[in-house]
């Protein structure tokens, strides 16, 4: 008996079939579609910023426009791509399947999450074009500037609040799904490591996001009612804004990276044809990162006027939180050792993730040293660092995941050569762009400046050319996938010979995922004899 795939099943047709569907797979695809559009908008703004730095005398855009650019680039990238990216797309699509369930615990709440996401995205874009001026505070909305500036801060901040609601509900749904809907034979230690990663992430989503929620609401209350909590004129302390902001926004970066690490952990064993090295280490390190990561937020404030005592404690904990991340890198590398490695596009991008994330992580450690931080805070060094971890890390992880699970999601194969070819401009452009920033920042180039002094110009030119090359590569990669969506060859059920549950069901999956709820044994068992 052939059941229709989720792409065709159900009674509705056309747009209502998608935007009224509570099927976790369709919701994952809805997120993907929205995100790809928003990502490209934000990439375009980023490229425009790089053009501005090329055209410094006279600059192409007035300074206020540049301020609006970096604000919106940050808001879109962080709140609409890097944060929700892997959980909302791949968490939604794969989590129920990977644990042997038919859907998440609360399917209607899941659809509501997507509605909140779209609402927040629309509000954020609208905030650009309404009010007296677009927001110009940076995505961090620091007080007191954010409570005084005429830009459309309240709307932008409210948009971020709504996006936070989306994140919270997704996390709540995933925790409940993992606790309640695993097939009975799947004990905690038989779960795929992507699920462990999603689990850690979900707890951060639930516990940390409300703090930014209230902080953003307070900015609105300040602007509208003048309650005074962040306003020095009324005795308020702007540093308290920073504390509250980073209490969420630091754990947020672990929301960004944990699922990417989870995806890498699925990809590497498949293409090394070996079981994962150190299952428990990887599982528990995800939880450790989530836990420790909630106590390091002060490292964003080393130059703000925080006490020395706080500086020292936060620095120490920052160094500690690098340990579980490093553990994962060791485990992935050990998995590769004596594996039968096949470098197809998902593996190519996964290996790139490890390399670029390591650079990002190491520069993070550098910044975690209070003395170094005095020199590099608010410079391009920081910008370089976070792009290495957010784009080199989460971004690459997202692309690797997309290349890995695309056939499963859409039943089509993409052109693997094109994906591999795209890798070259992506890798070269990326490093031209962001390694230059590390150097520029170390030399003293401040961030969020629309122009620069002559001694930084060479670095900026290299970076800008890098950005064009990177953008070119991204267009090839995403273009390849877009073409495959409509004209790709039909994908086999299990193109990569993966062993987790998603590869045991038809491609694309049927609406209810499984005919019978499956029974599972130990995870990551590969037939190594056949592979050699």
């Amino acid at each position, binding site marked *: 008996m052939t059941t229709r795939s989720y792409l065709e099943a159900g009674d509705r047709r056309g747009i209502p079939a998608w935007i009224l569907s*509570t099927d976790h797979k369709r919701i994952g695809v809805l997120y993907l579609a929205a995100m790809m559009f928003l990502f490209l908008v934000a990439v375009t703004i980023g490229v425009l910023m790089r053009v501005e730095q090329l055209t410094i005398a006279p600059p192409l855009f007035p300074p206020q426009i540049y301020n609006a650019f970096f604000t919106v680039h940050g808001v879109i990238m962080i709140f609409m791509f890097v944060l929700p990216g892997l959980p909302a797309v791949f968490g939604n699509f794969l989590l129920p399947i990977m644990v042997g369930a*038919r*859907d998440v*615990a609360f399917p209607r709440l899941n659809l509501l999450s997507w509605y909140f996401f779209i609402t927040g995205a629309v509000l954020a874009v609208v905030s650009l074009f309404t009010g007296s001026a677009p927001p110009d505070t940076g995505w961090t909305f620091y007080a007191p500037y954010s409570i005084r500036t005429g830009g459309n801060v309240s709307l932008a901040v409210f948009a971020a609040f709504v996006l936070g609601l989306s994140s919270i509900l997704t996390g709540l749904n995933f925790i409940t799904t993992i606790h309640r809907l695993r097939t009975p034979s799947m004990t905690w230690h038989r779960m795929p490591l992507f699920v462990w990663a999603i689990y850690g992430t979900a707890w951060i989503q639930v516990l*940390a996001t409300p*703090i930014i*929620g*209230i902080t953003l609401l*307070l900015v609105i209350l300040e602007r509208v009612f003048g309650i005074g909590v962040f306003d020095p004129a009324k005795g308020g302390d702007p540093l308290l804004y920073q504390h509250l902001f980073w209490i969420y926004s630091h754990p947020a970066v672990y929301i960004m990276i944990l699922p990417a690490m989870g995806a890498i952990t699925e990809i590497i064993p498949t293409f090394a044809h070996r079981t994962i090295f150190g299952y428990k280490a990887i599982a528990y390190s995800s939880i450790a990162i989530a836990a420790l990561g909630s106590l390091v937020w002060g490292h964003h404030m080393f130059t703000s006027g925080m006490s020395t005592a706080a500086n020292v404690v936060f620095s120490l904990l920052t160094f500690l939180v690098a340990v579980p991340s490093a553990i994962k890198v060791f485990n992935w590398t050990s998995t590769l050792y004596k594996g039968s490695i096949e470098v197809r596009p998902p593996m190519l991008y996964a290996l790139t993730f490890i390399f670029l994330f390591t650079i990002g992580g190491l520069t993070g450690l550098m910044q975690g040293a209070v003395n170094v931080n005095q020199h590099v805070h608010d410079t391009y060094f920081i910008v370089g660092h976070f792009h290495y971890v957010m784009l080199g890390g989460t971004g690459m992880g997202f692309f690797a995941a997309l290349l890995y699970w695309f056939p499963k999601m859409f039943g089509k194969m993409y052109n693997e050569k094109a994906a591999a070819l795209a890798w070259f401009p992506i890798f070269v452009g990326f490093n031209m762009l962001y390694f230059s920033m590390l150097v520029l920042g170390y030399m003293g180039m401040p961030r969020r400046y629309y122009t620069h002094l002559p001694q930084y110009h060479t670095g900026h030119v290299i970076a800008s050319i890098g950005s064009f090359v990177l953008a070119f590569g991204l267009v090839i990669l995403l273009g390849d996938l877009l073409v495959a969506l409509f004209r790709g060859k039909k994908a086999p059920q299990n193109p990569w010979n993966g062993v987790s549950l998603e590869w045991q069901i038809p491609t694309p999956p049927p609406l209810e995922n499984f005919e019978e709820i499956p029974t599972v044994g130990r995870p990551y068992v590969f037939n190594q004899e056949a592979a050699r």
Partner: protein
Amino acid sequence: MSGAASDAPAGHKDYEGSKLGMWLFLFTEILLFGGLFILYSAYWARYTADFHRGGQMLNLGIGVANTVVLLTSSMTVAISVSAMQQGNRRLSIWCLAATVLLGLVFLGNKAIEWSAEIGEGLYPNSPELLARPHGEQLFFGLYYSMTGLHGLHVIAGIAVLSFMLNSIRRNTITRTDYGRLENAGLYWHLVDVIWIFLLPLFYLSA
């Protein structure tokens, strides 16, 4: 039992699962108010004397009355759930109705209280308040933010409980299917817990 399939009719309900979901939502509320508690703790430490004076300007009588109202409403909703579990539909409805009524009394008290304070010029950005010491300005800024946010949650709670009242009347909440009522009760109890903390922070500010 696995959860309901997407476009198929609702399958088995997962009582424990929906309770877990509600508790997770309550955690988010704890952290939401938590951010405000963090701010309060910082400013209380810095402006202790001003906070003390601010507290004395509030109406302790209404504060205590509202505390009694909410504590009682917590008891009534708990009894309502227990009654439903035991099949006592009538008691369940009466206690739930009492809870809603007490919630409305709370809001009424709040309205009286706030109008009085606003009438005296004690609101953010008022000329009177701007002339007062910084600590008192922050005290009132936090007072309105925290009791205001709490009040919004009381309104939401009253709405949810009223909806449950209706569900009991229509028999969609029964002796064997009372999870929604219990979850609504959990929400109401948290609203009560937050007020338990707000009372000393503002009305008994030492």
